[in-house]
């Protein structure tokens, strides 16, 4: 017996693209700069550093994929489940009746990809239920649905 639902919903694929881009762009810039420096000075150090950056970027790339895969959420009858984390695997159960308010935020990069982050707050500070990388329509739908369910099941402190 567990809380595992039949189906986890995942954030949009664009989130993975965004995260990959966040790694690839700086890595590419650094490698190009180091490459130019290496070509001009002919020192092996610059080439070695460029190689190291490539290796680190490749590892991060892999990690980001795994982390993307770990995100999931599921709406059940009375509560919302959110799971995340590769190193520290977390699974949160937040009853709708306990939600105090819901945030929807979108940073500039997220906006460029049409994404938003939904965050749930309860009266406990330790609650960390956050779902990043939702399509904007999905984020709005989730927000409205959670607000509605929260109101229907609200329980006092």
């Amino acid at each position: 017996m567990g809380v595992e639902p039949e189906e986890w919903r995942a954030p949009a694929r664009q989130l993975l693209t965004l995260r990959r881009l966040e790694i690839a762009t700086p890595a590419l810039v650094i490698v190009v700069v180091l490459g130019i420096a290496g070509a001009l000075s002919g020192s092996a150090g610059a080439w070695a550093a460029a190689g190291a950056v490539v290796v680190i970027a490749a590892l991060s790339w892999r990690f980001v994929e795994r982390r993307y895969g770990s995100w999931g959420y599921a709406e059940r009858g009375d509560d919302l489940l959110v799971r995340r984390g590769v190193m520290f695997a977390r699974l949160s159960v937040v009853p709708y009746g306990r939600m105090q308010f819901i945030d929807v935020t979108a940073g500039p990069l997220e906006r460029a990809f049409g994404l938003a982050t939904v965050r749930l707050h309860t009266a406990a500070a330790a609650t960390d239920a956050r779902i990043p990388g939702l399509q904007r329509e999905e984020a709005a739908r989730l927000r409205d649905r959670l607000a509605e369910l929260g109101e229907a099941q609200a329980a006092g402190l």
Partner: protein
Amino acid sequence: MSAGPPEGWQRLHPLSPVVRGGRATIAIGFLLVPIAFGGDTFSNATPQLVIITVLALGGFVSWLVTRWRIDDDDLRIETGLLRRQSLRYPLAQVQAIDVVRPGLARMFRVAELRLRMAGATGGTARLAYVAEHEVEPLRDELLALARGARRGDSVPGEEDAAIAPEKEILTVVATGPLVASIILESGWLIAILGGLIVGFVVSPGTVSGVLGGSGFVWLLSMATVLWRRFNQQYRLTVAEGADGLHLRGGLVALTAEVIRPGRVQALRLVEPVLWRPLGWCRLEVDIAGRQKKKGEGEAQRGRLRTLLPVGKRAVAIALVDRLVPDRPRELSPPPRRVIWKSPLRYRALGWGRTETYVATTSGRLRRVTCWVPLEKAQSLRQVQGPVQRRLQLASVHVDTAGRAVHATLRDRDAAEAAEALAKLTDLARAARRKPALS
């Protein structure tokens, strides 16, 4: 009732600025002494007189612009001369009401009323100061309004007879153990005093040098901390009444607090390592409130109320039984392999549950036992770190709206944790549906 006509705004007690000034008032008193008795002429004392006049005027203005009233179900306070503030405190969200009387306030026969509010942004409503004879009726009226009574209903009648402060005293802390426990818990104090004594024997000159310098100031601040604790917890009495849990105590500064029924978020029993040979422990309650911010000290946190500053374990457990009627009796230990992850904590870990409560224990040196009503659980979390994954373990957290106490089922078998998470979710849902009393 003392609160006057329903539509009327009220002022605070006229002596409020004097009492609120606290130490400043005493300092002013000292400033006045040489003027009154010394050979100083008034022309010499002009700067002092100017300062005193400005302070007195400021205090008077702040008193003049502050007013409060009780609306149907909230308390409103308006204050500020230039930046006018209108504060509204919904009484339904009151978690507890304190009556605080510092030494100076007792001299002037006034008292401060503090309403502790719930919610992430809710602070504390303060009425400082109200005349001493008005404060208790006012508190009872606020409590009655918070319970949902209508204003004006509170004429003595059947209902009042039911609520009448028929209090039953549960525990009173003894003074001797309180002093001993404060000293014992501050292990550093023993270390420093021991160090000083040894130092004094070895080389008296050095020690008096240290004491004469900054060391003295430091000792004084330490003494203040210890004194504050003693002052707060002196003869702390816990009583149970129909309108909630009553705590009162204090030596110079008196505090009386009423925690509304069903507002207890968690109970915690702490056994510091140096107390354990004596079989002593401390019992604290947690109520909902603003969460601790970074940089906030113990003093501002203040939400964790001590029910029993020190007492025999049996006494504390009796109190727990009273407050947690459905207490989990048996706690199950974690699997043996936890010894690889938490070799020190291993023996102290455990958890148990009934239909309405979760109990957890932790801590090798400072043993802590928590009881959390499932009705108060805000969310549940299952966390598995890298080491735990290797050992097939996981932890389950029960988050509450309290400030300091969170029950954690630490290092359980992964399957057991998943099962506990599901079971506790179901139980918490059921408990929310039919609220039990704390």
